[in-house]
């Protein structure tokens, strides 16, 4: 290619045509690999749903039946007749919603206090709350169990909810966001006669919906997926959460794969709904989750 004497901008372009072709071919190959990888990543999910509709003798059939024949939706009612999955589902939903509500409320309130007020000892209080991020749950689970037992909260909803009612991450997240709300808005509300709680309710809350939703999804997911804590404090069948119920179901009926897959699918539905409708907020939360500090 002869580009000498052409327009000055063309001088920058000194990759040969062959390089260009190689680059395009390389990109196509990489893309194909990534797309194939995505399909592979999806296979376990597809296998779970597909197996949940198979009769037990078809589970290990070769070639793999991706579309079950016969189609057995009864697996779902069968698994529910063996273990009260509806009750587990209700428990998890109740615990998840309460935990989420408490977390969002207290994180916003506390974040507001830290972001917009001056008082003696503020940085100490903030640092103290932030420092709890360093404590892994396993480090405090024994004393926490003793506390909850002393409150008579074993096998109860408060036992499942209260220890998780506030997260330091939530407080940090809300504080960071509320810092960006201009003080003039609060002063304007004060001039209009708003009290400090009034400012929280009428100014801060409506402006903080986005991070609140982000925090809500994260909290709900964590609560819904938690296994260790329910495992420690729940012994009554009727108080089990979905995660715990599924685990026990596997211990008792470890080879009833089609029923296990049905249970797993049930356990995933609410999370999937959240994911489909609120993916944007969830992704935002992932990005922010590393930034506590």
């Amino acid at each position: 290619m002869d580009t000498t004497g052409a327009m000055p901008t063309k001088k920058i372009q000194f990759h040969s045509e062959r390089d260009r072709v190689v680059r395009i071919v390389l990109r196509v190959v990489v893309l194909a690999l990534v797309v194939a990888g995505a399909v592979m990543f999806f296979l376990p999910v597809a296998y779970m749903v597909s197996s949940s509709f198979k009769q037990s003798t078809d589970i290990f059939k070769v070639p793999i039946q991706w579309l079950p024949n016969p189609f057995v939706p009864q697996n779902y009612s069968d698994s529910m007749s063996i273990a009260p999955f509806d009750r587990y589902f209700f428990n998890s939903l109740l615990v998840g919603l309460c935990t989420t509500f408490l977390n969002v409320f207290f994180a916003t309130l506390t974040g507001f206090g830290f972001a917009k007020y001056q008082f003696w000892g503020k940085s100490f209080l903030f640092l103290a709350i932030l420092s709890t991020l360093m404590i892994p749950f396993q480090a405090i689970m024994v004393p926490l169990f003793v506390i909850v037992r002393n409150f008579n909260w074993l096998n109860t909803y408060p036992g499942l909810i209260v220890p998780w009612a506030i997260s330091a991450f939530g407080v940090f997240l809300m504080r960071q966001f509320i810092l960006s709300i201009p003080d003039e808005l609060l002063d304007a509300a004060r001039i209009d006669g708003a009290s400090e709680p009034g400012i929280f309710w009428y100014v801060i809350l409506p402006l903080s919906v986005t991070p609140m939703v982000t925090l809500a999804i994260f909290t709900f997911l964590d609560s819904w997926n938690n296994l260790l804590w329910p495992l420690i404090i729940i012994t009554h069948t009727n108080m089990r959460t979905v995660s715990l119920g599924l685990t026990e179901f596997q211990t008792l009926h470890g080879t009833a794969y089609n029923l296990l897959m049905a249970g797993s699918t049930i356990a995933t539905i609410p999370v999937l709904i959240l994911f489909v409708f609120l993916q944007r907020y969830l992704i935002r939360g992932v990005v922010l989750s590393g930034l506590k500090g």
Partner: protein
Amino acid sequence: MNKHGREVFLTPGLWLFSLILTEVRMAVKVASPRRGLTIYTKRRLWGLAFVVPTFLFFAIFAFYPMVNAFVISFTDYNLVSAPKLVGLTNYIHMLADARFKIMIGNTLGFVVGSTIPTILISLALALVLQRKFLGRDLVRTLYFLPVIFSGVVVAIVWRLLYHPYGLINTLLEPIIHDTPRWITSTYLAPWALIILNVWQSAGFYMVIFIAGLQNIPEDFYDSAKVDGANQSQSFWYITLPLLKPTSLLVLVISMINFFQTFTYQYVMTKGGPGDATNVISLYIYTNAFQYQYMGYASAMSIVMFLFIMVLTLIQFRVVRTENISYV
């Protein structure tokens, strides 16, 4: 913030008391006799009121248990009879406990074995998936999907996938004739857990890497192009160096998360075969709630706390010194 760092060593209860006392005393001092509290004092008290309930919550459900865990680690305690002080016995026992060493080894193996492929895969995915192409959002979603699954569901589904006649061996059969037994083999079981962990985690860190990539100003690439850099040059000299803070962050967070692994092992292998997949969390749980050795479990949990604390402090430092913000 640093000048208050020393206060951390005061007991929270005592400190809180003195704090409230000071605020009230100041309120009384500032208050004019005619109008009660001034606006500013009132405002300060409101600020305190918004914050104190949360602090009390953490005092009850984080600081107190943490101190308690430390105390219990010096006792012999089985939940039924009163704890008995035994000094350093639990810690000495820990040093002599061959199984504990296995757990540490297994946990570190799981952390290192998972972290490296997770970072490489999530970085590669982020690099490819930050560019626009048809169907990109769908591909991103497919990689992210496993993140939302509960650990229990993942462990149960993958137990079926790893079944001697499950999906994985069915797909492998044409390639390897003698298909492996995944979770019943001492050698393969740890790898089986690492594979499913990478599967579930890669999407999470991919999202963080994509955010990091979007943070690199487009101008940098433009000016590199003007200077005649080709694509691989701008990757090595712009993308990678500027991605260093994000990579450090991902490294530390993933280590913190993987270190605490419990659910996969508890649900899928129960730590077996033998102790091949047993990890610290599971061993602490077993000692505490199956053998009722609360003292010994607490001593091990203190060790675990120290590990996580160091990692978290590194994380804070990375965020602060590299001044990361994606918002």
